[in-house]
């Protein structure tokens, strides 16, 4: 429990809490970006540099921007903004709290007191090698999945009005 960890943890939690709590959706996404950045920093702290940088590239650089685009495309400036929270917000909060309580209890009573082993020296080449050798099948499936998702997203989001003309 180093100080660095605590600071990063607070930053991350604050960002994500804001992401879930703010009224304006764009503000939410911006806060989310902060949260993602915090998670990336924690990855770096855990000596998972590749993952951390991948996190920044993918989540911060793609997902968050995608969410912003979606918000902008689905919001009408003139329309009345709906309420922020759903009608059952209290139930949801209670459930979330309950989940956290259960997980925390499980963690705290598990007695996981292993000392951190030595710092692993992971090179990108190692990651690349293992991707191509041991994890080639998941890699290929991932390629298929991404292709399907790409095509599916295009088809779903496509404007179908031109076809009927």
């Amino acid at each position: 429990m180093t100080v660095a960890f605590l600071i990063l943890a607070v930053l991350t939690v604050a960002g994500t809490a804001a992401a879930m709590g703010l009224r304006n959706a764009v503000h939410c996404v911006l806060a989310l970006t902060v949260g993602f950045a915090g998670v990336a920093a924690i990855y770096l702290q855990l000596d998972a540099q590749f993952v951390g940088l991948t996190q920044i590239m993918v989540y911060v650089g793609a997902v968050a921007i995608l969410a912003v685009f979606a918000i902008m495309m689905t919001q009408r400036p003139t329309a009345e903004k709906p309420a922020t929270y759903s009608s059952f917000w209290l139930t949801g909060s209670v459930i979330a709290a309950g989940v956290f309580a259960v997980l925390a209890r499980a963690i705290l009573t598990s007695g996981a007191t292993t000392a951190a082993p030595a710092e692993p020296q992971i090179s990108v080449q190692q990651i690349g090698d293992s991707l191509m050798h041991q994890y080639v099948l998941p890699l290929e499936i991932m390629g298929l999945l991404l292709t399907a998702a790409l095509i599916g997203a295009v088809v779903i989001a496509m404007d179908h009005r031109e076809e009927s003309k």
Partner: protein
Amino acid sequence: MTWIVKNLWLIPALPILAAGISALLKQRSRIPAASLAIGSMAVSFLLSLCAFAHTLGNPDVQTFNFRWFQFGDQWLQLGWVLNPLTAVMLVMVTFVGLLIFIYSTGYMEHDENFTRFFCFLALFAGAMLGVIISNSLLLLFMCWEIVGLTSYLLIGFWYAKPEAAAAAKKAFITTRIGDLGFLIGMAWLYHQAGTLVFYDAGAGCLESSALAALVAHTTVLGLTVSSAIGILIFCGAAGKSGQVPLHVWLPDAMEGPTPVSALIHAATMVAAGVFLIARIYPLMSAAPDGSLSPTVALQVVTWVGAITALFGATIAVAQYDIKRILAYSTVSQLGYMMMGLGVGGVSVGMFHLITHAFFKALLFLGAGSVIHGCSGEQDIRRMGGLHKYMRVTFFAYTAGMLALCGFPLFSGFWSKDAILDAAHTWSVSQLPYYMGALGALLTAFYMMRQMYYVFAGSNRLAASSHDDPQLAAHFEDPAHHGAHHPHESPAVMTGPLVILAAFAVLLGFVGTPAWPWFQSFLNGKPTEFGWAAFTEPGVLPVMVSSSIIVFLGLALGWYFYGRKPIESADAPDAVGQLQPSLYHLLGHAYYVDAIYGATLIRLNTFWSHVCDWFDRWIWNGAVQTVSYFVLGVAWTDNFFDSYIVNAGFDGGCKSVSGGGWLLSLMQGGRIQTYLRIIGCALVALVIFLLWGAKA
């Protein structure tokens, strides 16, 4: 030659086979049908000749029996028998049948149901031959019934005519009444003797051991069992042979075509009754040892025969239809045959049967020829003068008529004389003799009357045709030979007439007292030729007196009908003018039919009404009750099904839908709700696992 005994069954089988094949032919195939019938009859005739030749050598009874089926530990046996009686009947039936078949091809030429006619004729021939050769009373009865059936079919051949259909029905029902007695007698015989086979190497019911047993028992009225059975079987014979009181069907049976009348109701079928009595004669004549008088059965037969002989002859005097005269004459002659059987035994009765077959068939075929020549006219008052136009028919008919009357030296003379001779010496009474003599007188009288009406004088046909439009139309029909007066029949019809006439003249000589070949043949004894027989006491006086009776009858006929020619068809009958009321009574056959109608028929109708009521209300009521009950059950079931089962089922379905509706409420359609529930479930699960792990 014993193969003939084994194959005797072929004789009836061939005509029946011909009938079966003819039944499948189309109505247009006349030549095949006629050829089959005539061909099979010809082959049967040849086989009958073989059988006859065989019996000349061995006159003993020869049988061929076989087992039919088993019931319990008894076997039902059938078979055929060949003895002189069988052989003589076979030859007669096949020969006369063959001639009549040939005659029919000419007579029925214009009829469109030619094929059906020959099919029925062949079936009749087969059945009749079956009756003759049968060695078992049961087989005889079966063939007897088929003979009755074919008689019905042939009488009602022109079924579209209501009189013909009614006559056929009357014939069948009347003979059926007789057959009831036959059946009871048969059952009783089987019960007493244990077998219905006639000759079975000593075990048959006509053989000595069975007869001794039958004679030993006595039954009602002091009759022996054999006599009682004999009388019952005689009921069947009386029906079939037209004895009084079951004679009523025979005159009406003239509605059938003339070949049918000739074959069935003159020569063969009506003779079947006489043949039956001849066949079971040992049973009828079985008397306890030491008894001299004839048995009761034979007495009954004699009296019934005598009454019938006189009865038929009196009615024939007053008839106008040419075939009816001959029909009542047949009734009378059958009475003679029965009388002959009763007083003189098998040979006496059978001799007259054989000679009668020939000359009666001749007379009927001649009448058919006359009817054909007169274009369908059957009333003798409208005929006349035919001796000029139909020479062959006239001569043949004369021969037959003289034979029937018993003119000396003709066949009828010898056979009738044998009967009268035996009646004269009958120990019980002389009355049958006198009745027979009177009947002979009347026979000569009415036959002479018929001859004068039909053949003598001038032709009254054209004169009466002016009154009858149908007849006039017939005459003017260009298809009908274009003649305005009667014409001779074609050779196919006159040929058999000539042949039968020859037999009518000559056949008697096989049975004269000088050379009683026929009688000896039937009795199985050797014969000798001897003039001495004429000098035996009683023979010559009877012969002379019967000749005088015949001459007297012919003279009376000439006196009334021959002296003055008959002027017109409407002239009253000469005898009728003398005694109009008696004549009227005779003309209506003593009103026997009316009496039957008022009594028996009304009783039958009443009884059928009772049965109908019973059927309608009692049986029908029971059936209706059951059906209403079933309906009630069905209705209850329906109610149950609709309101209870269906309701239950519907209720079940509703609860399922309701449950589904309830469950569907959980589908809010809102994703966050689902997520919340998943979250809850997760929490709950983890808590459960942790708590469970702890505990």
